[in-house]
């Protein structure tokens, strides 16, 4: 088959479009989803094709999200879109207290098939109130399934799965990845919602990452070359976390590095490392390592964010130092530090 290279945002749009074609229960609500380039392009052009199913809405996150939950409870399959985690937080009740608990609290038989897409994290100039991730909140509420697509292919496959799932699925989409490109199958396909993926096998160290951080690890591995044999795991799901896949890898490599792109307190790395540490059958060669953002809000001035997120260099050096290898000395350009990558994945 010929390659078909598309962007992360296009992959999301394609999944939405293809699933809307086959499932009349699917509709989309969110601020600006009806625009020509709606929701950062992830709903581009769909309003024209599905005029009654792509719904722009008033600025009422709580009301519109819980409305969608109510529609899901009664048989539709809504996609809700929120442009920032902070906007979605206004809909906390609908997500964490209603959708997550509905089937359980009514004793089963009450599914909530809803997909809530939320853009998270890093982008220049967003500042302290537009860049949180709050992963541990999303990971810690039972009843939700929560995934973080790390590439265009994952974005499409996970959104398709989410739309075939009979439970509330939250998709956290790192803005940092929106322009990443990849060969993505044109047909409908699914990626499992609750399985981590070993995306590169190795024997010296296990690196667990997700979303934008995973992309930085990929870049770091290019810097490192063959110096270290790294097993790279895309965590994919943070609710539930696939601890088994991590354990199997760590059992083999004996070393663990986690890479987070959120504040270090209560980050995903802690959850992973704690599970490995509690696992009596795993013996590590060294203490596990966690990279994360400092425990401060995200400032706006680029000079202040320069050292905020783990970069390919800090990640590469964490891996090299874990294996006792000399570190790399490389200064990143302004573009590398602050502009979202436009890489084509292979």
């Amino acid at each position, binding site marked *: 088959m010929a390659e078909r290279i598309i962007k992360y945002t296009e992959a999301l749009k394609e999944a939405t479009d293809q699933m809307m074609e086959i499932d009349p229960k699917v*509709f989309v609500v969110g601020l600006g989803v009806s625009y020509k380039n709606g929701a950062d392009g992830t709903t581009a052009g769909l309003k024209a094709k599905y005029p*009654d199913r792509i719904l722009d*809405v*008033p600025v*009422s996150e*709580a*009301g*519109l*999200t*819980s*409305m*969608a*939950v*109510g*529609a*899901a*409870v*009664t*048989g*539709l399959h809504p996609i809700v879109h929120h442009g920032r985690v902070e906007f979605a937080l206004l809909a906390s*009740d*609908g997500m964490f*207290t*209603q959708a997550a608990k*509905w*089937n*359980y*609290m*009514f*004793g*089963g*038989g*009450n*599914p*909530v098939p809803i997909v809530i897409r939320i853009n998270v994290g890093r982008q220049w100039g967003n500042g302290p109130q537009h860049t949180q991730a709050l992963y541990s909140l999303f990971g810690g509420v*039972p*009843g939700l*399934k929560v995934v973080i697509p790390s590439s265009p292919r994952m974005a499409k496959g996970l959104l398709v799965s989410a739309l075939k799932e*009979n*439970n509330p699925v939250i998709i956290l989409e790192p803005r940092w990845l929106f322009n990443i490109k990849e060969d993505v199958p044109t047909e409908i396909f699914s990626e499992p919602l609750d399985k981590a993926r070993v995306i590169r096998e190795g024997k010296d160290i296990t690196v667990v990452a997700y979303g934008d951080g995973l992309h930085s690890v990929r870049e770091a591995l290019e810097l490192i070359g063959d110096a270290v044999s790294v097993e790279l795991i895309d965590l994919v799901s943070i609710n539930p976390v696939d601890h088994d896949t991590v354990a199997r890898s760590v059992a083999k490599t004996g070393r663990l590095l986690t890479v987070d792109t959120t504040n270090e307190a209560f980050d995903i790395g802690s959850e992973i490392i704690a599970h490995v540490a509690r696992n009596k059958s795993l013996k590590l060669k060294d203490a596990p390592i966690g990279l994360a953002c400092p425990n401060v809000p995200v400032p706006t001035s680029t000079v202040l964010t320069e050292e905020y997120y783990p970069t390919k260099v800090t990640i590469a050096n964490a891996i090299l130092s874990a294996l006792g290898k000399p570190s790399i000395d490389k200064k990143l350009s302004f573009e590398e530090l602050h502009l979202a990558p436009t890489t084509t994945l292979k």
Partner: protein
Amino acid sequence: MKTAYLDAFKKMVSIRAAEEEIAKYYLENKVMSFVHFYVGQEAVAVGVCDALSAEDRVMGNHRSHGHYLAKGGDLKRMVCELLGKAEGCCRGKGGSMHMIDKSVGFIGSTPILGSVVPLANGSAFEQRYSKRGGITAAFFGDGAFEEGVVYETLNLAALFKNPLLLVVENNLYSVNSKLRDRRSAEHEVERIVTGFGVRYMKADGLDYDDVHKKASELVKHIRSGKGPAVLECVTYRHMAHSAPIFDDAAGYREEDVLEKRLEKDSVKKVRNLLLSQGVSETELSKIEADARAHAVECVKYAAAAPLPDKKELFTDVYA
């Protein structure tokens, strides 16, 4: 007409009897589940549900025994739920604040104040989207009406013209807090609601007839595709906010003191109406006795019913 009132009387009396028997059971036993009694407000639930059809849906709040029963919910499964039994309408997982009986269109109640309003709007959205007909009614209180999401929903429902009936049961209090401590003296619900383009009516929530007539008119409006409506019913809650007792001694009540509540009691009102229409005391007493017997039987049934298996703790987190 007479039969209509007789039917309403039966429903109201059976809700009343059920709750009285449950309250008695709570007082005599260690029941480990919250409870908010509906006693006094029966005319609202029955008046509204009588204006609905079988395919219409109803949702409620923390005080939904009456809503559930008025829509036809099963009493045994309700009491079982309160007592945490396996046959409960949520298999014991929800408790008193989570009523559900989808077989009769009662599709759930939620105790986070205001939350039912957008959820019901979602159900109404579905009814319009799927062109299936039917409307959704949501019951909630004057306190819940202070949550911002209610106003977001008034706007969204009006914009989408969803077939939604919002029934505000204004029983004068949020817990023990009076309206005047929660709203300015110039507060006018009607102006607010109609400002969003939503139809509004106010009913005497102690008068079945008034509630039913106005609910019927609004249901007609909604069915005709003209969009959502709000029915505010002013009513009295007879018992404490959340306990199987009368709490007049607490001293917070003003207008709705005990004798006033008894005097204006909604069940008594329908009863007197029926008497005046020539229904015999015997017939009414028979209805009351039947309701009582049924309530007693259901409570007894639930008390003896089996508990869920401990393993159910782990089931149904996901569908």
